[in-house]
């Protein structure tokens, strides 16, 4: 009998077999416990019935009228400066200069278009982040997602309801979500990804921007209706790279 089997009692075994009726651990316990053998049989039988009950009829696929696929325009991206007010010129000049220095020092691993595509694809692939919520993440979750050696973040960015460390272009990227007026707004802190100037993002129902910040950049993506300027300011004010 393996050590794990020795430690397994009826409660632990039943929890596992009811969570996954194909669970094949706990053989030692199972061989000595007729009650758990019966429970296992019952769970496996129930599982077969659940599968049958879930098998609903599927209607014939009505192919939607699909637009012509134009690969060139799947993710239309227009690299342009959006910052126009005087104060923003000053800020933009500062971060642009830093970005240019950063680019010269470290080089740019991917093009801005590719980075923008990765950002949009990432937002599209993480639906859990897009739930409307008024529950803030804990300080521990926030610290885990935004380690002190990557960035320091104060609490002025907004109500952060999602925080997770993700990967963009092979680098760890804190992925945060705050709640905007029209739904969740995604913020990706990308200290390793330099962009020379602000890059507009334009997805199917979302829009956003990648802002150059120091030697890295910050992506902000929200619903099409969301006005991002205020969020951009508060995010820029609340984030400081650690490196």
């Amino acid at each position, binding site marked *: 009998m393996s050590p794990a089997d020795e430690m397994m009692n009826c409660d632990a075994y039943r*929890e*596992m077999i*009811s*969570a*996954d*009726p194909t669970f094949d651990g706990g053989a030692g316990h199972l061989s000595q416990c007729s009650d758990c053998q019966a429970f296992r049989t*019952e*769970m496996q039988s*129930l*599982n077969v*019935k*659940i*599968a*049958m*009950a*879930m*098998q*609903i*009829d*599927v*209607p014939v*696929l*009505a*192919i*939607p009228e*699909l*637009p012509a*696929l134009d*690969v060139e325009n*799947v*993710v239309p991206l227009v690299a342009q400066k959006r910052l126009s007010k005087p104060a923003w010129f000053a800020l933009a000049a500062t971060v642009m200069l830093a970005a240019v220095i950063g680019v010269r020092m470290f080089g740019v691993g991917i093009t801005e278009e590719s980075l923008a*595509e990765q950002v*949009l*694809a990432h937002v*599209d*692939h*993480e*639906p*859990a*982040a*897009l*739930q*409307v919520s008024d529950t803030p993440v804990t300080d521990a979750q926030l610290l885990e997602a935004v380690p002190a050696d990557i960035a320091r973040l104060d609490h002025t960015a907004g109500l952060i309801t999602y925080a*997770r460390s993700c990967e963009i272009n092979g680098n760890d990227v804190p992925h945060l979500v705050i709640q905007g007026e029209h*739904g969740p707004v995604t913020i990706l802190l990308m200290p390793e990804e330099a962009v020379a100037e602000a890059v507009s993002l334009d997805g*199917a*129902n979302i829009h956003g921007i990648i802002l150059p910040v120091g030697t890295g950049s910050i992506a902000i993506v929200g619903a099409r209706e969301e006005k991002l300027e205020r969020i951009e300011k508060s995010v820029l004010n609340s984030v400081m790279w650690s490196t």
Partner: protein
Amino acid sequence: MAVFHPDMYRYAAWLCRDKAIAEDVVQEALLRAWKSLDALREDAAAKQWLLTIVRRENARYFERRRLETVDIDNLTASQAALLAEAPNEELNDLREAIYELEDDYREPLVLQVLMGYSTDEIGELMGLKQGAVLTRLHRARLKLKDNVAQEERS
């Protein structure tokens, strides 16, 4: 994409518990998948990619509509259609019990039983740790087991 249509439809139907809405959600998901086909890096990941899009479209639908809580005694025709096809009374009772499970319990169960996902894969799709997935599946099955026992007694 048509190969995955049955999985997409069944997943959507059990998520939203309404056959008509499920068809809308799948149509939207197919359109969205088509438009962003270049984002699919590996063919082997197609099913998970499509189910992720279905999940997101379903969330969008309910964000837009703010539908009321489903009362199983007052279902619309489209909701009731989901329950009307079971081949026998026992399965019909079980289908109703699945229908009444909370979303948090029903979704991982559908992913595991119908889609064949591992608990790791379910966690990835739902943004949960494996322990949380196991707990939800355990509770879901116990609820269904109790429900079956109750039906047998009555």
